[in-house]
């Protein structure tokens, strides 16, 4: 009786010892801040002051009636809704194209992965130059193609799409790499069989490739949503949320409230709303898309 229980105690101690490092970090830098921000959201907390006043639901009332919160919310949702599907489609096409034995495939793969390796602040600055209305190469190209020149980052209509285009460029390579790894695990004989039956390349993609790599696509969708809700660096570097808040997103709005307006209580409230929203979104995706994932061998 004593022997197995001792063994399991020992095992759980080992498990605890192995979990401890990450548990310490998660507690200190994730769970504890989440609890703190929940606490702060019901209080009036000011950066640089140790006086805290209880407010009840006041911060939440303010958030729900705050036009700028809803604008940032809409901007973030719009950004995610367009950027992530577009980047995944680009990535999938790239991955399928580069999963073949064409000449110089390693070079192409590195070339398309290259944007991922550029630090986001540097990439942001480069795109600020590319988008410059007067001398920017993008407007130069639009001029050659006979398209109207745009004001890009200086226009409240085009600033957000401009950041989205750049994000698609940046995300595609990253997603491509993940999808490429998944593609290489798809058994080749399935394609050979399909070819013998005269199935077109397009139908092979729809009926073989996509179902078999669906767990990875699911993973990429989740990662993509998480990434895009955390978008901050590009906006901060390229537009600071402007013009006219057309590129303000939730993370930037949290930052502004916390550090520009010193209103930690309100910033925490927005952060909690963001957390709640991402939670609901992920749950929805898990309940719909997650159920359709096809696991190889199961």
């Amino acid at each position, binding site marked *: 009786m004593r022997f197995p229980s001792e063994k399991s105690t020992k095992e759980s101690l080992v498990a605890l010892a192995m979990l401890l490092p990450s548990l310490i970090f998660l507690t200190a830098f994730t769970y504890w801040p989440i609890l703190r921000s929940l606490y702060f959201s019901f209080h009036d907390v000011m950066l*640089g002051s140790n006086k805290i006043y209880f407010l009840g639901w006041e911060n939440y009332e303010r958030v729900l009636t705050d036009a700028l919160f809803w604008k940032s919310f809409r901007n973030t949702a719009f950004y995610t809704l367009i950027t992530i599907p577009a980047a995944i489609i680009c990535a999938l096409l790239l991955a399928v194209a580069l999963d073949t034995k064409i000449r110089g495939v390693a070079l192409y793969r590195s070339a398309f992965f290259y944007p991922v390796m550029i630090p986001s602040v540097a990439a942001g600055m480069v795109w600020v130059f590319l988008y410059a209305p007067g001398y920017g190469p993008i407007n130069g190209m639009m001029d050659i193609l006979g398209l109207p020149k745009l004001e890009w980052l*200086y226009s409240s209509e085009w600033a957000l799409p401009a950041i989205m285009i750049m994000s698609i460029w940046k995300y595609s390579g990253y997603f491509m790499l993940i999808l490429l790894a998944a593609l290489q695990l798809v058994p080749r004989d399935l394609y050979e069989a399909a070819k013998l039956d005269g199935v077109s390349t397009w139908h092979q993609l729809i009926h073989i490739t996509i179902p078999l790599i669906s767990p990875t696509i699911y993973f990429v969708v989740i990662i993509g949503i998480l990434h895009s809700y955390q978008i901050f660096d590009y906006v901060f570097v390229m537009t600071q949320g402007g013009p*006219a808040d057309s590129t303000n997103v939730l993370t930037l709005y949290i930052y502004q409230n916390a550090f520009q307006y010193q209103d930690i209580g309100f910033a925490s409230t927005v952060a909690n709303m963001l957390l709640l929203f991402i939670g609901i979104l992920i749950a929805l995706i898990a309940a719909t898309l997650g159920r359709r994932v096809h696991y190889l061998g199961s």
Partner: protein
Amino acid sequence: MTSTKLPISRRHFLQVGAGAITAAGMLGTTPLFASGTDVVKLQFMYPVGVSGDINRIVTGMINDFNASHEKVQVEPIYAGSYDNTEQKVMTSLGVGEPPATWLPINSALQTFLGMDALADVTAMAKADDIYQDFLPGFLSICESEEKLYGLPFQCSTPVLYYNKDLFAKAGINKAPDTWAELMETAKALTIRNGADVSQWGVTFGGGWHDWIFESFVRQNAFVPWQKDKVMFDAPEAIDALEFWVKMVKEGVMPSASTWQGSANDFMAGRTAMLYHSTGSLTNLRKSSPFEVGVAFMPKNKTYGATIGGGPILMAKNQPDTHLQASWTFARWMTNTQNQTHWCKETGYIAARKSSWEGEDLKAFVNEVPAAKVALEQAAYAGAFLQVPGYHKVREYLKSALDRTLAGEIDPTSALKDATKQANREIERLMRRRG
């Protein structure tokens, strides 16, 4: 020298040793409480708030200061925009290590006072020529309840810049003087090809359009704020915003722009008129390939302008020697000669009467009459939105203006909403102050 025994007992040795350790400990803190003979090191955080090579000019001035002052050395810290600078100062205040001096926008005065961050320099100023020589309007932006908290350094107002070539091409020979004329002139100068506008009639520098907006409200003979509340929903303010909406609907003004982008547009001839800071004057004048005209912002009931730009403020939480040194620095940056230099180099309005009476600036005004427009307009100018929580309050106002100009909401509802939200924020901060 017969005895080899040291004349120190063990106890004596320990006492001396303890003393030495204490002394060494104190030595570590000496930079904070430097004695008269040491060099006092100060930090100065400043922004670049207009278009042009301001950074080089400020650094040059500080180098001159350091070269001419043996006992005070100032470290210039360029901190980005006004918002970035103020934020950096607030963060340092939060951890109890503020810079000795900094340059915010004057509107942040109440915010810093709320944080108990500012040294009262009234006595030092009274012992000096400050109250006699500074233009009263500019000095008042550093005052609260008759106490002085800084020295005005880079004073500006928005002015109307116009492209004389484009005016001549359209057969117009004078800048608009009233809102009605502004509308007419802007219409005459707008060039569109179908839906595309290749030349706007007028652009208001975005990002600081709330500052420009307050000028419009002042032109309706109203100041939309008091020390503890805002009145953005007053009829005078709603009327001003309705005028803006009319300009956008007529298609003579873009509904949004950026601060730097609008200046670039003006220099590239993409807008014929521009509302921008006087601080941009020298850059616009020198970088534009055409002759730049400068005029008063057109009046409605009266002329009116808002003072932007900033005072040099000094931290309360610093030893006396450092406060003295900070004063020496602020005083030097705003002396007659430096205000003249700064005014010529940038277009910011020199804050001292003696600068304007000096031969140097007189000669400059003869050569560039535009430099004097802002000074004359300053007679109609007042401080900008000096309320607690200014950063958040102006964000509510900007958002209201932006949403209205984008056609998402009508002027009255937008300004009512902004007023409600802003006053709630001010109340919260007043409550905190207790």
